[in-house]
Each structure stands twice: as C-alpha cells, then as structure tokens.
C-alpha cells in the first residue's frame, strides 16, 4: 500500500494506543500533502475534526438562517416568474442545509445538537444574514453579491481535504452559481427599468456591497484559524486573497449593470493588476459577529420559534414511527453491515 493511502487503515474512536498517535499523524499529514481525501472512517487529529465540525456546521446554519432575508419577499414578489425563482432558491437553500448537516454528521455529531448550539448562540452563522431586506432589489443584490461572495469562498472548498465536505460543495456550488446569475439578471431588469426601479437597484447595491466584502472574514493578519486550515487544506486561499478576487470580478459586472459600487477609493491598480479599494469597517463587522447587527435578534428568534413551535410535529412523527415500525417494515436497528462499518461490531 502506498504510504499516502495507509491512513485508510486507521480506526476511529480515538482507540489508538498513545504511542501510535504519532504514526497516525504522520500518515494523515502525508495523505493531506498528497492531496488525498480524508474520509469519515480515517484517523484524523482531534483539532482537524473540531475545526471541520465548527466550519461545516456554521456553513449549514448560514444556509438555514439565510433563508429568512429572502423568504421575507416571497409573498411580495412582483411577478409570478420572479416568485417561482425566489421560492426555488429558498428551497435550494434548505437543501444545502441538509447536505451540509449530513456532511458534518459524518464527523460524529448530530444535527439536533448542532441546531441546539445555533439556537443558544454557541455556534455562529454568516454575518451577512443579519442585514435586512428592505426592498425587492435586495433580493437581486443578495443573489449577485452575497451568492457571488459565497461562490468565491466555496469553489475552492470543492477541493477541500475532507471528502464529504468537498463533495457537498460540488453540489452546492452548481446551484449557487445559478442563483447568482438569477440575482444579476434581476438587478439588470431593474437597472434597465423605470427610474424608480434603477434607484431601487442602486440603493440595494449600496447597502449590500460592504457587508458582502465582510463575508470573506477578517484580514489575514487577524484571522485566527487561517494558517492551520490552510496547512490542512481545508482552506486553499487566504481571506484577503479571495476578497480581492471577488472585487476584481464585481467591478466590471457593476459597470455592465450600469450601477456604481459605493467606494470612492475603488480604482484599477496597474502595478498590482488588481482593483484597490477603501477600508472596510471592521468595527461594524465585530459588532455584527457579537450579535449586535440589525437583525441578529430577529433571525435567531424566528429560528427558535420555528423549532419550538414545530416540536409537537417532530414528536408526533417520532411517536408514529415507534408505533408503526413493524407494520411499515421500516428498519430502525442498524443492519449487520452498518454495525461493522462503525467498527463496533
């Protein structure tokens, strides 16, 4: 067996004799260095596992909370075509949440405990969803800028060292890029519409531009997890690198939308081959992360309310399943195969 593949033989559950840990770690490192995928049953460092749990869970939470600002406009969408697009998008986001919770469950945590951490503020979600959707154009700005930033972040995650996360990202990115084009197209229709519609589009871009740039996280010299995540190939590029890439993509797109970006310092730098841009208000970012953004309270309250008010429904489903298990032929006991796979048989 090639050394880089030897990590596949390692068992999980931390049942590794202490003396062997160094060996497993060396095998793990070799696998990561060789760009092999780490899979759920492979040995992995505890810190790698917990970093992934944090990141994937917060990614999943972001999909779920991110439904709210857009769902806010479903009932008011101004045409049936736009309404259908928006409903499909919000549905996709719930689906992305499901993929991601499945991915994180391969690391030995449950969706229920992660949701509980979201509801009690012990795990975060993307800061962007703490901003309100005040006009219809915000739906377009979210598609173009917020989904655009998300894609810039997520495409490199398709090559992330953890297999289940990377595979989830392949599926998510396909749908996200579709949403992003729809958002752009929505803004284009407004921009080319009546003067009132154009103004609505410009106002939305003015409000969403800076929060979108904050989605890439703090500057590299202040990013707590970056170095380790890059060494583990969970991250492939630094926050600042991705932010710059996003800005370079957006400037010409804004021009073709006939909209401006709200940054007087934004200009092409021939020497760097990139756009220079003005300072980001990191004080605002920190406030939003701490829970003091415009909608933090509202978002988490709605999520908790949906969960609490749905408790009786989940209890009913569980009670029904318990009663009718035999009758419906549904298996609850893990089959012998599954038990073996858990390494506990």
């Amino acid at each position, binding site marked *: 067996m090639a050394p880089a593949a030897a990590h596949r033989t390692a068992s999980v559950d931390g049942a590794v004799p202490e003396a062997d840990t160094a060996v497993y770690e060396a095998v793990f490192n070799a696998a990561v260095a060789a760009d092999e995928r780490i899979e759920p049953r492979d040995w992995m460092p505890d810190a790698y596992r917990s970093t992934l749990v944090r990141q994937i869970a917060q990614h999943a939470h972001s999909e*779920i909370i991110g439904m709210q600002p857009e769902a806010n406009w479903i009932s008011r969408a101004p045409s049936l075509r736009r309404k259908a697009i928006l409903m499909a998008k919000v*549905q996709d986001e719930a689906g992305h949440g499901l993929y991601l919770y499945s991915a994180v469950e391969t690391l030995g945590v449950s969706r229920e405990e992660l949701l509980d951490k979201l509801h009690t503020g012990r795990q975060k979600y993307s800061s962007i969803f703490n901003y309100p959707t005040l006009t219809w154009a915000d739906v377009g700005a979210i598609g173009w800028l917020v989904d655009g930033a998300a894609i810039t972040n997520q495409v490199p995650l398709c090559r992330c060292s953890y297999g289940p996360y990377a595979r989830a990202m392949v599926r998510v990115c396909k749908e996200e890029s579709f949403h992003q084009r729809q958002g752009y197209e929505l803004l284009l229709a407004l921009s080319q519409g009546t003067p*009132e519609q154009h103004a609505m589009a410009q106002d939305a871009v003015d409000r969403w531009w800076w929060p979108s740039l904050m989605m890439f996280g703090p500057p590299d010299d202040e990013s707590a997890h970056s170095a380790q995540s890059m060494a583990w190939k969970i991250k492939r590029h630094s926050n600042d690198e991705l932010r710059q890439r996003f800005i370079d993509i957006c400037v010409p797109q804004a021009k073709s939308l006939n909209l401006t970006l709200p940054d007087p310092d934004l200009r092409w730098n021939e020497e760097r081959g990139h756009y220079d841009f003005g300072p980001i208000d990191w004080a605002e970012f920190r406030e939003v992360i701490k829970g003091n953004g415009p909608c933090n309270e509202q978002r988490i309250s709605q999520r908790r309310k949906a969960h609490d008010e749905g408790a009786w*429904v989940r209890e009913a489903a569980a009670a029904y399943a318990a009663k009718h298990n035999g009758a419906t032929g549904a298996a609850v006991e893990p089959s012998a195969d599954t038990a073996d796979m858990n390494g506990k048989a």
Partner: protein
Amino acid sequence: MTVTAHTGAALALGDDALVLSHRLGEWAGHAPVLEEEVALANIALDLLGQARVLLSMAGDEDELAYLREERAFRNLQLVEQPGGDFAHTIARQLYFSTYQRLLYTQLAAQEGAFAGLAAKAVKEVAYHQDHAEQWTLRLGDGTAQSHERMRRACEALWRFTGEMFQPIEGVEVDWAGLQTAWLESVSDTLRRATLEVPEGPRSGAWAAGAGRQGLHTEPFGRMLAEMQHLHRSHPGASW
C-alpha cells in the same frame, strides 16, 4: 377581459393553485423541520407552475394575479384560509390535493382544453396527496397533542369542503362522482389516522360555491394586499 366559460374555468382552477401556493410560501423559514421546508416549498412551486399555465390560458398571468381585486378572484375559500398551525396546513392540503388529484385525473382522460395541463399536474398532485396523507397519519396517530390539533384542524376546515363540488362552467367532469370519491378517500385516510370524519355541514349557505363567485373570507383581502402591493406600486413596470 371577457369571461367566457373557458377563461372562467381557467381562472377558477388557476386561482386555486395561485392562492394555495401563496399560502404555502408563507411557511418558508418557519417549518417544523428542515425536510418540510423543502417539501412545502416544492408543493408551492408545483402549484405556482400550474397557476401560471392556467392563468396564461385566460390572459396575462401577472395582470390576472396582481391587478384583480378580491371580488374578481374565483378560488375556493378553502385555499385562502391562513396557514394556522402545521395541522391546519396539512388538513387543507389533504382536502385540496385529494380534490385536485380526482379532478385532474378526470380532466387528463378527456380531450378538453385542460387535458394537457391536467396530465402533467396529476403526477404532481399525486405526490402532494401522498405527502398530506402521510402527515395526517403521523399527526392523527402520533401523540395525544398532535391528535387533538389534527382533529381540530380537520373540523375547522370541513365547512369549506362542500364548495369544491359546485360545478365549474366549462369543466365537464362528473361532479357528483368526484364528491363521492373524495369523501371516500378522505374518510379512509382520517380513519387510518384514528380521526373521526367531521360531522358538520359541508355546504352552508355562505360557503357553497361562494369563492367561485368572488365571495371570499376576510383574511383573503389582506393576503392580496401583501401579494399585490409592489406590483401595483410600479404601474407598467416590468420585473
């Protein structure tokens, strides 16, 4: 717009789908479990797709959806009922999807103007009905609390079920047969869910056919105000 039998029928069926889709869309971000976010949005999207085809048979879909007032809508009162709790939503879905499947099955078998739409829609509504029945069983035969909530929901909406079988001009189906089959199907599901078939009237003086004549319940006007306000605020704009 001149309302002929054909456009009138397209409006009646289209408005049912449009209004129920809107009501289901209100669940987005509020469902009891993530899987239901997906399911309810999925059903809402199917219905919106049906509405767009049907309204387009009668005229411009957006003009019809956004510029008619309450009295010109021909949907059933059942579909405009506010979501209430999850049990109300499921009871509404059970009653309506059973009706829609039986109706579209008949329409799909004919050669009329609605055959094409019905043939496609019947596959969707069979799925909707399955979803509603599965939840009716789980809520009815789940816990004491869910049983009680489902019982109340089924009773509260029962009074709106008679209007479904008032014949729609331009829709040539066996309405009496439809009603018999509907009652049989719904009663069977309720019994399997350990629920009693409600005993109240299904065709009171007000409910019978009222929605089809543009007579709606109070929450409907507010629903339209929300749905139409942006479109109406920008006359002539395209989106």
